[in-house]
């Protein structure tokens, strides 16, 4: 592999920063929204605003998915190939993990985990797989 020019390195890093900045901001907003919504419902014994409280993190989660989908749509063919493979693997791993854990909950009394963990777990797996796949093509 030939030496990369400083300009090329800077451009590539700027693209990575933009990509990860969006992810971190939305992930942080999602976690904050979950805590805010939880505190609203905990302070309300009748839980009359439960559905509304759930909407806030749900909207942020939807925005996160749309952000990811738009990124993938705007990628070049190579980056799109890697991203789509990473999404497929992350989805499969998340579904498999949830099902296997469910079996342990059902039969072995394992502790239940909140379903809300599914999206952050999938995002983590996606990042790990994306990084691994990108490195494998170098």
């Amino acid at each position, binding site marked *: *592999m*030939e030496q*990369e*020019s400083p*300009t*090329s390195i800077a451009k*590539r890093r700027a693209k990575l920063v933009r990509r990860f900045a969006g992810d971190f901001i939305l992930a942080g907003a999602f976690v904050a929204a979950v805590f805010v919504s939880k505190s609203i419902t905990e302070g309300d014994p009748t839980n009359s605003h439960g559905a509304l409280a759930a909407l806030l993190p749900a909207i942020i989660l939807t925005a996160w998915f749309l952000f990811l989908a738009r990124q993938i749509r705007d990628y*070049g*063919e*190579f*980056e799109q*190939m890697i991203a789509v493979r990473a999404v497929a693997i992350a989805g499969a791993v998340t579904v498999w993990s949830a099902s296997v854990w469910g079996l342990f909950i059902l039969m072995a009394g394992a502790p239940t985990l909140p379903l809300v963990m599914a999206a952050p777990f999938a995002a983590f797996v996606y990042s790990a797989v994306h990084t691994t796949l*990108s490195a*494998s*093509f*170098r």
Partner: protein
Amino acid sequence: MKNRLRELRTEREWSQARIAELLNVSRQNIIAIEKEKYDPSLSLALDIAKLFELPVEDIFLKHG
């Protein structure tokens, strides 16, 4: 798929970044093609052929 991209690029003394810019793809894409780890789409293969003014089959060589 075997290809002559690296050979043709170096003949013209183009860097990977330069050819990536000419083809409007990423440098990582060019690296993957040159290392034969990634086969370009038909559209990109035709763009590469047009860039080097050669038929596609003179650049990309199917195994066997």
